């Protein structure tokens, strides 16, 4: 039975340069997207804790809309939908990779917003009361007392989101981004070595995500001041 097994591991090895060129985009899109995603998430997350009704509802609508739709739909909407409108009105288009970054930013932003909100709201009211009673303004209490503690609590779920967003980049083949999976699919299309190539592609993603996990663990340990 195993004699019919005909695997050729030289194929993934020979196509490594092509696969690595894909990893370049996977990392760039994930990293840049998450950078902006964190900014969006922090702002929207604060909006979600706000007493101001308008800010609260705008933030809530954003979070529910983005969390409630698949990121693939968001990417297609952006690249084929929004681009169509932009093309016809202002004659400008968003490129594939840019669309990927925007999709990651908007998508992770929604999830990060909830992470931010949850962490902030988990800080005991006593901390805020203590800060205010010491004469610190609302802003200073937040900036010096609440945020540093909340940030520490955000690290594990943020790391989780980083891993998720990194894997989400694999969907962007549909908007012509030459990321890792797309490169792998192209090699399979010409060599038909599906087993070997997808094994290697999976392992490459694993290398990326495990790296994030390890860095995360290091950071968590560093911040264990108590």
């Amino acid at each position, binding site marked *: 039975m195993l004699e019919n097994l005909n695997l050729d591991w030289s194929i993934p090895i020979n196509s490594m340069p092509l696969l690595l060129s894909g990893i370049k985009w996977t990392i760039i899109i994930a990293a840049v997207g998450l950078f902006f995603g964190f900014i969006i998430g922090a702002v929207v997350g604060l909006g979600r804790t706000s007493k101001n009704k308008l800010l609260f509802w705008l933030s809530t609508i954003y979070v529910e809309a983005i969390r409630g739709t698949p990121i693939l739909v968001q990417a297609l909407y952006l690249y084929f939908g929004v681009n*169509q409108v932009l*093309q016809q009105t202002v004659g400008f*288009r968003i490129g594939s990779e840019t669309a990927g970054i925007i999709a990651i930013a908007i998508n992770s932003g929604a999830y990060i917003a909830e992470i931010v909100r949850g962490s902030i709201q988990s800080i005991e009211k006593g901390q805020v009361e203590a800060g205010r009673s010491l004469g610190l303004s609302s802003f200073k209490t937040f900036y010096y007392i609440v945020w540093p503690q909340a940030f520490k609590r955000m690290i594990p779920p943020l790391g989780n989101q980083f891993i998720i967003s990194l894997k989400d980049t694999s969907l962007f083949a549909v908007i*012509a981004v030459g990321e890792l999976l797309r490169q792998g699919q192209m090699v399979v*299309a010409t060599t038909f070595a599906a087993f070997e190539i997808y094994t290697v592609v999976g392992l490459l993603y694993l290398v990326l995500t495990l790296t994030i996990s390890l860095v995360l663990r290091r950071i968590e340990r560093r911040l264990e001041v108590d």
Partner: protein
Amino acid sequence: MKLFKKLFLLVVVLALVFGLTACGSTAEKDTASGDADNKDVAKIVVGCDTSFVPFEFLNESTGEYEGFDIDMWDAIAQELGVEYELKPMDFNGLIPALQSGSIDVAIAGMTIKDERKEKVDFARAYYDAGLMVLVRADNEDIKGVDDLNGKVVTTKTGTTSYDYSIAVEGVKEVKPFPNIDGAYLELINGGADAVIFDSPNVLYFAANKGKDRVKPVGELLDGQQYGIAFPKGSALVEDVNTVLEEMFVNGKYDEIYEKWFGQKPLSIPSA
């Protein structure tokens, strides 16, 4: 808390039950009857592309797949007396599916080429085609494949069109999409200057959904033949060849061809 735990357990059990029964039924579907006698009870699984007009495509109103390939296979299956089920899937997944045995036949406007012949067996060619360049209707600089210097070409991943496009001299960039619809959209929206793809699909698109927005230019490039693919060593190949030969002479081929291409076949594909 007790109620919550019970509900949770119930959900887990239900999920397992459904999961196992789903496994059971897909395992059944995967036993392909590749080399058994043609009057087998088990259905033959026929893979095709999800969208490749006019060979196979979804009729939005009826929800059924139709097209030249669909009609051709249906005619062949009737002659052979076999029952089959159609499985539209990602074009680039068809050959791996034949290799792994999850489908018995693949008919998808697939060009017969040597690299594919190493992995699967083809019955004799059933359609003569070529590639065609498509540009936006208002484009005046590109009149054919020789005018693509410094231009962006888009096409479908893993196809002969892709192989052809990357070999054209002077092309600035080739942007492949998993499905040709993406490439057509890209052309219309201005993200690429030209599409290079299979002539029947290009012409059909230009005459229908792409009317007044795109136009084919230049002549038929890179003549190629489409074939029906089978797992290596499949006994169906010989039977299908016999039926195809009959269809080429008894008028059935002409009938199906005219239905989808609006004219008599320009040529009968050579064996």
